[in-house]
């Protein structure tokens, strides 16, 4: 059964281990989904979420939590963004020029076996890092431009620019995908004749 936040908090403060289990089971999946969208890595996302739950458990007697979902989301955002920023392979989006033709999605062989969703996931994953984070936080986590700017410590103008950039790349890739699919369909039609 699902509990309200206030019910979960009440149980949590009465019995930490009972409470953490209920909170964990109720929010684990949604938190992992948030973390994986930011980090792109499943195992890293799960580690982050578990760390957040453990922090919550550890500090249960010291901090009064007013909004459980707010606390968890914020903790997962902060940890995930910090992990991404701290990654050795992280390159600031502004330092690289994104090459549309160099993202691994232009091969007919690949496209033949990929569904649209997988394709789009791949394109989002391959967006420049800052651009991807801005897009993910706005598109999937429903943060406003202002909130994204604050979370990533960039200006609102930069958020606007990165959102436009993300959409331009996605649109170009999507159009290319549709075009290749059309060619493939035509080829299949010719072969079946």
């Amino acid at each position, binding site marked *: 059964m699902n509990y309200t936040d206030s019910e979960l908090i009440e149980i949590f403060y009465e019995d930490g281990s*009972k409470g953490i*289990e209920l909170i964990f089971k109720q929010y684990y999946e949604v938190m992992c989904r948030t973390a994986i969208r930011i980090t792109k890595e499943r195992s890293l996302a799960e580690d982050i979420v578990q760390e957040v739950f453990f922090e919550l458990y550890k500090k249960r007697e010291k901090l009064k939590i007013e909004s459980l979902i707010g606390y968890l989301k*914020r903790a997962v955002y902060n940890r995930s963004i*910090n992990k991404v920023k701290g990654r050795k392979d992280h390159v600031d989006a502004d330092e690289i020029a994104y090459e549309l033709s160099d993202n691994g999605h232009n091969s007919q062989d690949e496209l033949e076996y990929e569904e649209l969703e997988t394709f789009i996931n791949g394109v989002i994953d391959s967006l420049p890092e800052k651009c991807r984070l801005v897009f*993910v936080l706005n598109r999937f986590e429903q943060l406003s431009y202002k909130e994204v700017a604050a979370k990533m410590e960039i200006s609102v103008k930069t958020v606007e620019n990165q959102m436009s950039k993300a959409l331009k790349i996605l649109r170009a890739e999507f159009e290319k995908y549709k075009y290749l699919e059309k060619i493939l369909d035509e080829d299949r039609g010719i072969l079946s004749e």
Partner: protein
Amino acid sequence: MNKDFYISLISKKLSNELNAAELKDLNIWLSDVKANSLTLNQFKSTWDITKDYKSDISFDAGTAFQSFASKYEIPTTHTKTNIEPKRKVGVKKYILILSLLMITSAFIGALIYNSYFNSDNPNQVANHEMHAQSFNLNDAVNVTIAPNSRFDKGVYTIERKDISNNSTTNANNIDSNSSNSNGSNSNSSNSNGSNSNGSNSNGSNSNSFNSNSSNYNNSNSNISNSKRASNNSTINSLDYNTNDGNNASKNSRASGSSNNTNNNRGLDSGLSNNSQYSTQSTDNKNYAVENFYGQGYFDVNVKAGMKPAVIAVEEGNYIEAENAIFNLQNYEDDNFSIIDVQTGTVKFVAGDNVLIVEEGQRLIYDETTKNFEKVSLPKLSPFQWHKGILVFDNTPLDEAFSMIERFFGVDIEVTDNSDLSQQNFTATYYKSSTLNDCLEILSESIDMDIVRNGQRNIEVSNIK
């Protein structure tokens, strides 16, 4: 407008970020040619197909919890029990909550009353609350002050600039753009020709701004003895009465005390006793704020042709502004003042130094050495606090604690030998949150134990 501009508007539309003007622009563009509508549709389709990003990945919370409990040694002996939450809240509980709310309101009311109406200095405004407070001081000056900040209301008058400012002084003409930290004693000049006779009780200390010039004329005698040196040049304007005797000094600041007795310009009890329009000024300045300590976000908007507003700090140092938004930090336990200018230009006068601080600049003035430094504003806005947002950007822990202490008016006691200056963290604290949330964010970034003891004391230990 180029296409990128409209793509930006499309992005905003898809994110529900468009304002009315932008929506109007976009609609005009869309109705311009059909291709524009097609472009919008293509972006919308692209936007729509991204909706399931990573949503096909499933997570098994049950299995994950077993692994989590084992990894972090969480007791699970009773995890199979069916836990029913308590759902009924009795009427008694509501009555109790209501009573507590009423008591709290009465307490806060008493505090506010004490702060503003019952202090020994009726002109003093102090913020003892755990959040920023705004005050509309007069027609020209609005200020938001951080907790643990205070100031005396100056006697601000609606006066026109007196461009024939009559004072003959042996003044030092200091280039206001200079970065000279100690004014020279040369270049005396007659500021506008008339004699400063008659009402000159102290005779020498004359500070005046020539409103037609970018230069500042400042006499050099007895500055050290008179922080806001009594300026007794003959002024033929509608000035206000100050009985002078300005002897405020940093030493006289009673830390945290609301009983500030150094209302030294003779502002006697209550503004009502002072005519703002009929008496003579001793220094010809239009004080909006005096003896400012703490942190304040000022929005100054003086009407055209009127005298600039003066925000006086201490030891004769003051800021003069006409149309500017700026942040002032002048904490009692710091020996420096910091001015960050968001818009416009302000003039900071400290002894012989007259410093112009422009939009986007930060001025750091060391009160001990009298040296100063002008730098660009920090990357993260120093103005966010007035909206209730604390921003930390790789901030060393000791600084973060200091910011929290000042902003929330709490004491943080660290019972740990760690080198706090080595601990950096990045986080943004939002207005909608509370001190608890701020502490949570801290503890998420750095592993440590935080215990709140009552409203104003926080104990920190085991920093790792």
